[in-house]
């Protein structure tokens, strides 16, 4: 019977970070693992998974550094809990990014500020799905946020100071997630030439169009989406060509 490499790597990542999962694997059948796969994992001395005592702490620190305001909302223990989740194991098997996947996982608890910090992290990485077509320039992340979240982020980021990890590790009380306003902010998160990330505004239609092309789209599909967003026939091509001229859209062959 064939054994699933992705499932084993997923489990291996969890075993290295989560002592409770080590006990689970040794105790009996585990969802997502065949008995043949579980036998391979149980053949490893269980102490071997925890030789690096600070592995999980370093990973938590890295997430706090990248998503400090999200961490301020959910607390250090809320960040730490990610490493006991099945979502964490999937990061490896789906070749994801730890920070981006954590942001997606924590958003139901942290609210839209996690989406904002996820956009900042994504802009910093500047990655796009492969394939030909028109695509939003890597390093530009279009984002629609409930009104007030950006101001909340700015205030909390300042309050955390230069070393958010130290602030949170010192027991800084959790902050309440912002109450979303009725309106919506349409934003462009953009990585500059020096690597710094800035958040600016854009029209809702522009942001929605650039969100559509965060995966590669044909020119025809992009023009059609521009018309759905309110462009008149003829104006659609003008808008798309304008974005290409500004470098917000790029052509992939």
């Amino acid at each position, binding site marked *: 019977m*064939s*054994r699933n*490499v992705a499932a084993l*790597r997923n489990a*291996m990542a969890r075993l290295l970070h989560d002592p409770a999962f080590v006990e689970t694997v040794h105790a009996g059948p585990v969802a997502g693992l065949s008995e043949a796969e579980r036998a391979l994992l149980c053949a*490893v*001395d269980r*102490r071997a998974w925890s030789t690096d005592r600070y592995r999980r702490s370093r990973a938590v620190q890295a997430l706090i550094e990248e998503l400090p305001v999200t961490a301020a909302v959910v607390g250090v223990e809320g960040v730490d809990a990610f490493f006991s989740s099945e979502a964490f194991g999937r990061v490896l098997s789906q070749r994801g990014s730890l920070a981006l996947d954590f942001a997606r996982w924590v958003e139901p608890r942290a609210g839209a500020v996690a989406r904002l910090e996820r956009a900042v992290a994504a802009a910093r990485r500047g990655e796009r799905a492969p394939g030909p077509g028109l695509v939003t320039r890597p390093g530009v992340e279009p984002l629609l946020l409930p009104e007030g979240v950006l101001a909340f982020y700015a205030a909390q980021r300042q309050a955390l100071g230069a070393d958010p990890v130290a602030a949170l590790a010192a027991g800084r009380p959790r902050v309440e997630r912002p109450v979303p306003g009725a309106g919506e902010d349409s934003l462009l998160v953009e990585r500059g030439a020096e690597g710094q990330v800035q958040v600016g505004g854009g029209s809702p239609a522009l942001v929605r169009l650039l969100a559509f092309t965060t995966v590669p789209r044909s020119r025809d599909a992009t023009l059609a989406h521009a018309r759905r967003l309110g462009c008149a026939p003829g104006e659609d091509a003008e808008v798309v060509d304008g974005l290409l001229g500004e470098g917000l859209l790029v052509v992939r062959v």
Partner: protein
Amino acid sequence: MLLLPPILIEEQVAPMAAGIAALRAATGLEVLPENPPGTAFVGDLHILDFFGRLAEAADTGLLLDCAHLALYQQLHGHDALTGMDGFPLDRLVEIHVAGGSVSDHQGFRWVEDDHGTVVLDDTWRIVEHVAAHAPNLKAVVVECERNPLEAVLPLFAEVRRRMAGSPVLGGTP
């Protein structure tokens, strides 16, 4: 980024070989897979069998980290040279030599790949075996960063002495 050793099973060979071939095609450079360090290896293949099969499947050369191999062998209670008989030494292009130190965790003994200047006896046995039997070896890398110069110079001299049996690198300054 979380770096994990490969899962040492037959099912991992083909996808990893495909990745090596893709990387070689994309860069135009040779890609030499290296046996990694670790304390937890999952799979029913010996690490040398796994990398031998991988090299055949990807039709590529190999990098053998002798210190990593020594720690793998010790972790599994093997002799330093276990698995060498089936390992394609003719594909070996580069070897690494480094110091290591024995650690203990709740009674579990393992070797830390600390790149110190004290090289384990098992690592030297592997180096000498490889030197004598790898006809296409091109490079020996001594990994000893973060040590003072006066501490590492004797290590280079010792590596040179241990490589004396190499038909291709023996006597190389």
